């Protein structure tokens, strides 16, 4: 076992055990905090596929996070008010079932990611950042003006949605559900990184000319990466809204997109565990520093500056050095 897998296993184990410990020592708030971290980690793992593997600096991933959030909000809203979502040409009812909500979130964010990708992937560098940002703002302002679903105030859900066999109202159970999803997605993402697709995507980031001259289309590779990426972040959005039992336009905000990037840079760009470590550290800092001062973002800024200037590989890079090429 390499140092890296050891570290990753330890990180995952800590993520599983700390909330369990908090649960038994009667600290439900810590469990909720951990749930938040795990869900944000999931969102950032989604971004990692576009950013870390594909080199696509998307400043619009909040679009997918928000779509997931609103998928949950809207479906649950109609279920709790006993009004159908639409009646013509066929009736669609709301639902309080998490699996259905997740499916809707994933499908919608994939479709939107496909079209955003189609338009934005023609550009690169700063233009790509700007276009994705612009899409983010479009969705943000649309959500604000969408009065049917709360507009600026967002939507509240009275009771957390259900999952067969799990009492999602119990914090530790909902946590376990989120953790399992994160672990499963990370398993697939790890496979993806080493798959034929992952190899080609990685190469398309480093040497697109090379990828073309061996007969592969870098643009198409990036587009599929962007769709997968958006789908995962969308799923995280649905969970996030369920955690808070609330969704609002802030899920679409560019600050949200920025935070996802921060998680990745903080934890370690290019590594699958980077976004996880980054999200956990961020949530912990937000909690600890937030208690100390309302201006905790200043400290965060200093930390980020430090990481960017002195520890390019983020926290994991600092601890483990450069990633060794794997077999």
């Amino acid at each position, binding site marked *: 076992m390499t140092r890296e897998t050891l570290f990753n296993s330890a990180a995952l184990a800590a993520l599983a055990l700390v909330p369990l410990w908090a649960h038994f020592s009667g600290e439900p708030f810590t469990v909720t905090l951990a749930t938040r971290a795990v869900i944000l980690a999931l969102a950032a793992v989604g971004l990692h596929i576009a950013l870390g593997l594909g080199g696509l600096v998307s400043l619009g991933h909040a679009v997918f996070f928000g779509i997931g959030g609103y998928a949950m909000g809207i479906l649950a809203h109609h279920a709790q008010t006993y009004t159908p979502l639409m009646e013509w040409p066929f009736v669609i009812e709301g639902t309080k079932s998490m699996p259905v909500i997740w499916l809707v979130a994933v499908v919608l964010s994939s479709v939107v990611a496909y079209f955003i990708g189609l338009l934005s992937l023609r550009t690169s560098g700063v233009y790509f950042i700007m276009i994705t940002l612009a899409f983010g703002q479009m969705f943000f302002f649309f959500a604000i003006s969408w009065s049917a679903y709360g507009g600026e105030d967002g939507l509240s859900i009275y009771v957390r949605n259900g999952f067969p066999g799990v009492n999602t109202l119990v914090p530790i159970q909902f946590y376990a559900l989120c953790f399992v999803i994160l672990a499963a997605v990370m398993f697939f993402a790890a496979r993806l990184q080493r798959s034929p697709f992952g190899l080609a995507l990685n190469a398309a980031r480093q*040497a697109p000319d090379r990828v073309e001259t061996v007969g592969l289309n870098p643009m198409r590779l990036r587009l599929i990466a962007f769709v997968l990426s958006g789908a995962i972040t969308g799923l995280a959005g649905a969970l996030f809204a369920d955690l808070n039992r609330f969704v609002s336009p802030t899920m679409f905000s560019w600050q949200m997109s920025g935070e996802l990037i921060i998680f990745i840079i903080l934890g370690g760009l290019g590594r699958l565990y980077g976004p996880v470590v980054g999200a956990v550290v961020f949530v912990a800092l937000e909690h600890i520093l937030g208690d100390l001062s309302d201006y905790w973002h200043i400290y965060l800024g200093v930390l980020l500056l430090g990481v960017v200037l002195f520890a390019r590989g983020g926290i994991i890079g600092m601890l483990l050095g450069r990633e060794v090429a794997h077999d």
Partner: protein
Amino acid sequence: MTEAILATQGISKSFGALKASDDVSIDLMAGEIHAIIGPNGAGKSTLIKQICGGLKPDTGTVKLLGEDVTDLPTELRARAGLGRTFQISALAMEDTVLQNAVLGALGGQGNPWRFFKPVLKDKDLLDTAMEALERVGLQDHAKTRTAELSHGQRRQLEVAVALTLKPKAFVMDEPMAGLGTEGSKRLTEFLGDLRHQAPILLVEHDMDAVFALADRISVLVYGKVIATGTVEEIRANKDVRDAYLGDEA
């Protein structure tokens, strides 16, 4: 007469007032090495780009195995059988040597849409990649990060990746550049044999290599082919001496 494997017909390309390609017609026959020589800025790389894709000629056509490929994007020309090496190495530097070769094999195989099975456990891809690495002598560096290779080794890897495609024609832009005498000599020997697998369109400044290898030479000056012929014909050609070869002939 048999048909050319690869041919350009009356290709012209201007960058503003600069004529980078001026009515260029060259062809590549089975089993031959056709060298393209000419001074810096003559338009050799520009010609290669139009042949391999990435740059569209203003007029003229590019034919591969008799098919007009002028409007095909780069990746489809590669699939149709072009194996290209770059003047400046274009490799995935963070990846290992083996991963770069496997990428080539994957491209040759044509299906990157597999998301689960580890690519380095795919026996077919590995075999193709290792065989190519062995042929250029990089097999002992398979696990080395490409960024750690010497310049010469990167040139070898460029060739190896092209080999994995099992192309119908090779197009090489200065493969000897920066190799040193020993390296050039080895690669010269290697290319000499390779022409029997697939013909090579070879852009090269190294005249020893060109004279040793080429079945035919075309001389490009200011985007125009001023002469095409055998080594002897080109060495004897007065225009070529004036324009390019000078004392080297």
